[in-house]
């Protein structure tokens, strides 16, 4: 049996023992903006090869969780492991789809150029993407139904099409663990379906996908595993066990009550 410290790149070829290393673990992570904590004591271990939703009300820290894991905002405390190693070591196994609004879509590049950026992690400094990278990127665009738009300037795409371009970019990263920040937000029905198909394909390819989601209506149908978040992990586990009134009530309703109880607990611990 392999120890947890085994180099994951050597086990990447789907060796059975590699599945014993969880794709993603957070230990005791706290994230704060200035002096205000937005995520408290997050402890998470997610199973491999699942479609995992992070669900919670606005301001619950869903995006913050992903960004803190990816090192885009500093963590006040805690550790993140990707396939059993620090994120910094194993970042090449991670793919990322940021929120669509996070970039300037008027930037003068084509859809294909955006997708090619997903290959940059495989290229060295100064090296330009080659023919092989182009082929991979065109394939990915085809997969999200955007092959005809490869040369289109990105500001001429609709919101849903822009989202698909971002997904294609993550695909060519060729990662094993994906983080997607609200890919379903504000997209048309066709795009929603295209994204869902893609998620299921990724699952078939033994990937793990963690998605920030906002819709209580669709989450049960789309995902296998659920993380309910509201400044802390309220509940997480397989969808069937986790998606219930009690947990949702704890996540969405009585938000103030939760904070009050937490503050009370902190006070008691200090005394």
């Amino acid at each position, binding site marked *: 049996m392999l120890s947890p410290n085994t180099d994951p790149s050597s086990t990447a070829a789907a060796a059975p023992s590699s599945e014993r290393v969880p794709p993603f673990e957070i230990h005791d992570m706290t994230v704060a903006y200035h002096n205000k904590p937005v995520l408290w004591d997050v402890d998470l271990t997610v199973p491999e090869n699942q479609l995992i939703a992070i669900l919670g009300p606005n301001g619950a820290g869903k995006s913050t969780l992903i*960004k803190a894991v*990816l*090192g*885009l905002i500093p963590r006040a405390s805690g550790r993140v492991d990707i396939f059993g190693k620090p994120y*910094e070591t194993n*970042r*090449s196994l*991670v793919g*990322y789809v*940021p929120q669509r609004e*996070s*970039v*300037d879509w008027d*930037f*003068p*590049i*084509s859809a294909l*150029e*955006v997708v090619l*950026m997903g290959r*940059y*992690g495989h*290229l*060295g*400094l*100064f*090296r*330009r*993407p080659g023919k092989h990278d182009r082929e991979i990127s065109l394939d990915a665009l085809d997969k999200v139904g955007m092959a005809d738009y490869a040369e289109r*300037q990105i*500001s001429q795409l*609709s*919101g*849903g099409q822009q989202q698909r371009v971002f997904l294609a*970019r993550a695909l060519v990263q060729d990662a094993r663990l994906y983080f997607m920040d609200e890919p379903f937000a*504000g*997209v*048309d*029905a*066709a795009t*929603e*379906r295209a994204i869902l198909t893609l998620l299921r394909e990724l699952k078939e390819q033994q990937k793990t996908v963690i998605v920030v989601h906002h819709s209580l209506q669709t989450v049960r149908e789309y995902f296998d595993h659920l993380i309910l978040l509201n400044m802390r992990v309220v509940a997480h586990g397989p969808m069937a066990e986790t998606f219930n009134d009690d947990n949702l009530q704890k996540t969405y309703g009585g938000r103030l009550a939760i904070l009050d109880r937490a503050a009370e607990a902190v006070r008691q611990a200090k005394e």
Partner: protein
Amino acid sequence: MQRFGLLWLIPVALALEITAVEAFGLEPIQQGIVVLADLFGLHYNSFLIWLGTSLLGLTSGVVGAFAVLKKRSLVGDAVAHAALPGLAIAFMLIGERNFIGMLTGAAISGILGSLAISWLIRHTRIKSDAAIGIVLSVLFGLGIALSRIIQDDPTGQQAGLDAFLLGKTAGMISQDLLTIALVAANVLVMVALLYKEFKLIGFDPDFAAVLGWPVLVLDGLLMALLVFTTVIGLPAVGVVLIAAMLIIPGVSARFWTDKLHVLVPLAGFFGLLTGFVGTYASAQFADLPAGAVIVLSGSAVFMISMLVAPRRGLIARSLLELTTRLRIARQNLLRTLFEAAEENENIDIPITPSVLLKLRSWSPRQLQVLSWWGRLLGEVESHPTGWRLTEAGRRHAAQIVRAHRLWEVYLVEQASIASDHVHRDADEIEHVLTPEILKDLEQKLQAAGRWPATAPSSVHPLTEGEHA
């Protein structure tokens, strides 16, 4: 990440270049200029100035393009103003007008100024525009105060700090040209080598960070290029106006292209053109500050780009707007005639102007023009009592009405997930919605009795569907 260790080659290369320049001195450069000036049949001095300003324009155009895209247009302005106290302090320390020494001082205070801006944005509630405004004016004020102290000192007269304010190309010497050429070469090589890197950190720095790129280092490098370009431009264009040299070429080029790999060289070319033409113009108007003349030349490039550029230029845009309005007006006319006919339950009855005017907010005159246009297109025929649709008009109108109603239903049914499509033209419905959704919507329309293909009773078939 390891492969970015190569970035250490940059300071090494710079050190080698400086050593080489010191070893060979100015001789080879001066001889080169003499040879080239002879070749073009120009006077040594004017050729030198021309070369200097053109190179400066090229460099600032290329670097400025990235700054504009990163929404950092004004940072160049702030850096330039912040450079003034550095120039003055360097002169005080060195005690004579030493181009490289003074530019080093300018670069240092420029960098400090830009760091102060980032610090203010990051650690206080001050927003970027206010932060730039504060740093720019405070350091500029300090610079003015220091240069007044220098000017009052008898040895300070020769500092020529006034030239740094508004620019003076005439005073350029081979030493200055060498500095400009050196910085220009480094900047251009760096942009060429790191094009892919600058492109990604311009578009999506977070994604670059996730890939493990040293975003702060690359960003700092881009910033350094901006600072050095600004600083070498100070003697020619001046503190107050150098920002225009950075901004105008990039903004002008943006009108002409949607492609970064075209935009960057084009901005360089526009910058070069600005420097070249500006120098010529400033020779004609020797009394005016060179900076002003060069910037005014650049504004000509901008004006022309803004007006005549295809697609993005103002003329092309207003033409597009006009054709769109005409198309919508035509669609409205056809749709109104068609729907009025639906009301009559007979497509052959002509529609009177008063009915049309009631249905639409047209003036009688607009209606006259529209119907004239409809007849011209063969879609409307006039009748003593009004107008009615021709065969072709009916087919087109049915199409428009169909798309319009599908769209209506779609927006009502699914507006919450389609919010990003509301602005779409009804014509494009088939491109946006999937066939399944269209079918579903069609059924809904038919169920409500609003499907335009069958609605008005007519002896004439309205759509191809009914032909069959």
